[in-house]
């Protein structure tokens, strides 16, 4: 029997729109938030497209999930409130790893890059979502939840709440939350770092709801007031066209795989971090960070 739960993200859309207006108005008055017309348009079209693309493939995802649940689950944990809490925490852990691989494996980055493609950081950026997440191995990270006995409908439901939580952290209007909150939860400050292209901030703060995963797995970087965040991609997009935004990295992968000489290179164009090339002609985030560290050291030595 399929558990029938409401779709939290769809219910939240009117609130998202109103909060965008509110942030815009606040930014207009105070200068503490910034929007740009075309950028906003693209972000919102990406959000709408993501909803449509998700709806088109939702049944496929559910069929696959229930097949795993029916055939491979070890327990049936039922649908008591504590199961929802457990599902929420474990789904957030799964999200952390999906998100981390989303930055470190080019196949998954091809889908996730969309969310980082704006040079702005405001509530509309939260809605700039992928259209192609279904075509990555992300699904496999959720399988342990089904196998341990959490019904897929519950996972879908808590994942929706997770996504809603992440909406409000996409803002520059909030500086820091109370200390205890910053210590445990993902916040605007932590997530600004995640969206920043400053070398110091690359590949940090993959958390969805709980920042503790980053602290646990060594990817936590606090926001440094001396290093203001610059948002976007290390190689920004020169287009607002939603279709180009949606598919650019897939096109890039296709071109690279097509032109590759060996099967090893073909595999690595898909599985290695974004920016990897056989001849090192492009830069990965690790290379950018290493160059930055070398510059820092040279500056320190020059100062001594």
């Amino acid at each position, binding site marked *: 029997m399929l558990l029938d739960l409401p779709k939290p993200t769809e219910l939240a859309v009117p609130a998202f729109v109103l909060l965008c207006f509110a942030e815009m108005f606040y930014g207009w008055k105070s200068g503490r938030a910034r929007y740009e017309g075309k950028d906003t348009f693209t972000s*919102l079209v990406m959000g709408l497209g993501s*909803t449509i693309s998700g709806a088109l493939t939702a049944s496929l995802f559910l069929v696959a999930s229930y097949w795993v649940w029916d055939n491979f689950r070890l327990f049936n944990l039922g649908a008591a409130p504590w199961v929802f809490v457990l599902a929420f925490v474990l789904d957030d852990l799964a999200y952390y790893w999906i998100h981390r691989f989303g930055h470190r494996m080019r196949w998954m980055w091809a889908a996730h890059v969309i969310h980082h493609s704006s040079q702005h950081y405001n509530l509309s950026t939260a809605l700039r979502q992928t259209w192609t997440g279904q075509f990555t191995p992300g699904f496999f990270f959720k399988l342990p939840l089904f196998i341990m006995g959490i019904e897929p409908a519950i996972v879908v439901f808590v994942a929706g709440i997770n996504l809603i939580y992440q909406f409000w952290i996409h803002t520059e209007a909030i500086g820091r939350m109370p200390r205890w909150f910053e210590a445990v939860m993902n916040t605007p400050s932590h997530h600004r770092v995640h969206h920043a292209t400053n070398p110091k901030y690359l590949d940090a703060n993959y958390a969805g709801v709980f920042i503790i995963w980053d602290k646990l797995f060594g990817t936590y970087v606090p926001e440094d007031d001396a290093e203001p965040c610059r948002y976007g991609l290390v190689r920004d997009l020169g287009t607002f066209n939603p279709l180009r935004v949606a598919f650019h990295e897939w096109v890039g992968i296709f071109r690279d795989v097509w032109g590759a000489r060996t099967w090893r290179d073909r595999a690595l164009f898909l599985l290695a971090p974004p920016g990897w090339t056989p001849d090192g002609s492009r830069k990965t985030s690790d290379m950018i960070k290493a160059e930055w560290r070398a510059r820092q050291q040279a500056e320190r030595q020059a100062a001594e």
Partner: protein
Amino acid sequence: MDPIQLIGSFVAIALLALVARWMFPNKADLDDARVLRNFARHFPDEMASGAIIGEDGKTALVPLVSDSTRVGLVIAMGDRTVCRLVAGADIAAVIRKDDGLHIRFHDFTQPNTMLRLSGDTLESANNLLTSITIRPAKDAA
């Protein structure tokens, strides 16, 4: 998604984008300081020797001090900029017209740009790009 929801979504998107455009108009064009600052932020190891900025303030070329095989490119995107370091192989075509240089790239995320120039500046920008492209511009066009 039913049609009413879809239409409602498009109305909301248009409204938000229009209000954003009205509340946060883009005023600043590119100038020397902005071009060089953004270029240096993206390519801290490259030394710019100046900037050739289009007359509309939308696109700029950044010649490099000790590298004649590549050139910097800074393009205004909304209220932000996009910075590139391009070599000859990145350029599909440079077409010189009366209003300036129309450049096409082998880049899905930045297919083309236009450098609005005239007179001597057009001449030197054209020479700069011709010198870094492997094939002569007319072949690629």
